[in-house]
């Protein structure tokens, strides 16, 4: 069993991981950049190591200092959280080479998952529905034009190395394709260091539904229900919920089966997420697999009563999960709202600074995961999420009412600071959301009205 974990992350997820470690009797080593010197997790963890200056490239992404910190402090495992090094196969490999358990899938599996075109092919072979598209990557425009003609416009051009909504372009017709192809490929080369792209048919009005999976080292794969993340702004999720409203039991079961089949097809171990698109006809298509714990994992935790970080650690230790598939039955509805220090009226510009007032809500079924407390400084170097609010209720209407109540209680103030709280309140109380009619385009369509 793992005895001491180095947490290679910051903010709420670092504290989230430290809390579960503490509950499991596992020691913790926090690492921090100069900007996070006074952060909660640094005070909370058993030990903390200063690993570099504020810029992530020289701290949270700088492997040598993280590995050295783990070795010097006697950690036997590394939890990467989400973002930063969490999906970097090289990091997983370096951990292994240094005798450290990487809490995540094996490096070769991560490498496989990093190639979106290959994953698509494997999932199709495993029987998962994928959108009509190219077989693997499309190295030339001429080839792209042939594929697009075959699958029909509009088409999506996607970076092979992309993910999370980055490196995507849509061509409405043949005339647009050359420019979209060129732009996406150039972006992918610049951002991911790999310009390869592939093509898929474009699905215009959709819901984003993802399935949580957990696979142990003995080859057992479990699905833990789905999350609906359709409230997005430019592929940035704002609100997530579980279960996905409006799915039939048959759809839900089929999604779970697809997720397990897909995870097995790539030899997955640990906690992961299978992302799907749900079209208005109720058909699902596989989108991508994320090889990490996700920001929105708490909504699954609340409806399932399962601590996913604990299960990650168990599985990484070679144990089986603490449940069997038949134990997994969702209860009620959970909703998560991401509270960012951003100004929605100024194109969501981050508003870092000191949290003069920071009073999270309390009371029944009101969970707050945050890396900050009153008086803390939100540094300008990292993402602007300052808290996640997660509520649970027996049904979706009550969960929405509870989320709105809790958001109204959440007091955040600071010089020049704005948050997404008012926007979140107007989104979740909108009739389209109440009726669960919203698609992934809802926020972008609703924003101009909401902010005026």
């Amino acid at each position, binding site marked *: 069993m793992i005895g001491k974990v180095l947490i290679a992350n910051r903010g709420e997820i670092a504290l989230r991981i430290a809390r579960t470690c503490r509950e499991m009797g596992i020691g913790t080593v926090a690492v921090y950049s*100069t900007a996070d010197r006074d952060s909660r997790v640094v005070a909370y963890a058993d030990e903390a190591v*200063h690993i*570099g200056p504020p810029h992530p490239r020289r701290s949270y992404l700088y492997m040598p200092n993280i590995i050295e910190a783990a070795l010097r402090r006697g950690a036997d495992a590394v939890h990467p959280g989400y973002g930063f090094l969490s999906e970097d196969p090289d990091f997983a490999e370096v951990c292994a080479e240094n005798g450290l358990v990487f809490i995540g899938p094996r490096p070769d599996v991560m490498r496989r998952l990093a190639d979106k075109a290959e994953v698509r092919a494997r999932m199709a072979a495993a029987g998962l529905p994928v959108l009509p598209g190219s077989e693997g990557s499309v190295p030339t425009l001429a080839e792209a034009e042939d594929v697009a003609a075959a699958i029909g416009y509009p088409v999506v051009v996607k970076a092979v190395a992309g993910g999370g909504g980055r490196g995507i372009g849509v061509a409405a017709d043949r005339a647009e394709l050359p420019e979209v192809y060129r732009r996406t490929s150039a972006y992918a080369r610049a951002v991911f260091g790999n310009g390869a792209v592939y093509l898929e048919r474009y699905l215009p009005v959709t819901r984003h539904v993802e399935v949580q999976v957990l696979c142990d080292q003995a080859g057992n794969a479990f699905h833990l229900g789905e999350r609906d993340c359709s409230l997005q702004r430019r592929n940035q999720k704002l609100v997530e919920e579980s279960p996905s409203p409006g799915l039939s039991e048959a759809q839900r079961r089929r999604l779970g089966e697809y997720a397990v089949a897909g995870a097995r097809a790539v030899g997955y171990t640990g906690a992961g997420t299978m992302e799907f698109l749900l079209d208005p006809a109720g058909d699902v298509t596989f989108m991508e697999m994320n090889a990490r714990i996700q920001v929105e994992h708490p909504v699954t935790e609340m409806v399932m009563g399962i601590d996913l970080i604990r299960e990650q650690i168990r599985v990484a230790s070679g144990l089986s999960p603490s449940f069997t598939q038949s134990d997994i039955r969702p209860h009620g509805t959970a909703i998560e709202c991401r509270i960012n220090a951003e100004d929605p009226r100024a194109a969501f510009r981050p508003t870092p600074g000191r949290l003069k007032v920071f009073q999270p809500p309390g009371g029944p079924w009101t969970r707050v995961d945050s890396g900050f407390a009153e008086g803390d400084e939100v540094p300008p170097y990292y993402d602007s999420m300052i808290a996640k609010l997660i509520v649970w209720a027996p049904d979706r209407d009550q969960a929405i009412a509870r989320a709105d109540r809790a958001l109204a209680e959440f007091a955040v103030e600071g010089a020049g600071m704005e948050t997404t709280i008012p926007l979140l309140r107007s989104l979740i109380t909108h009739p389209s959301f109440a009726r669960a009619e919203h698609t992934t385009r809802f926020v972008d369509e609703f924003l101009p009205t909401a902010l005026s």
Partner: protein
Amino acid sequence: MTDLVAELRLLREEVSSLVKTIPGPVASVSLRVGDCALEIAWERSGTAAAAPRPETRDEPDDLIDDGVRTVVAPLVGTFYVAPEPGAAPFVRPGDRVEAGQAVGIVEAMKLMNQVASEWSGEVVEVAVADGQPVEFEQVLVRVKADQS
């Protein structure tokens, strides 16, 4: 542009940290990084009462720069005082060092990284024992710099 923003932020952050960490009222700060330069002068006042001076008398001596400078760890690893086991240490308290001279080694990922003093002067203290783990920017050696 992005680099510029990052540099500016760094500059500001560094100055803020600096001002926060040095006790006593500062008269002026000047910081230069490549093309960027930042200078700040504080109001020198008989009206010092107006300034919040929380710890005014705590450590009055700190107001006088004693010329002691620090050499810090550039990365996380293990500190060694000598080039190899059994060899004489790079420096001992009382030794004279020149700017650029090695004062220790930080081993990280099996690589030996020599750490050089930025200052010429006299070694006052070797702050970390041989073979101990060090963090980023942990003070390794203190040097009383020559008056310039």
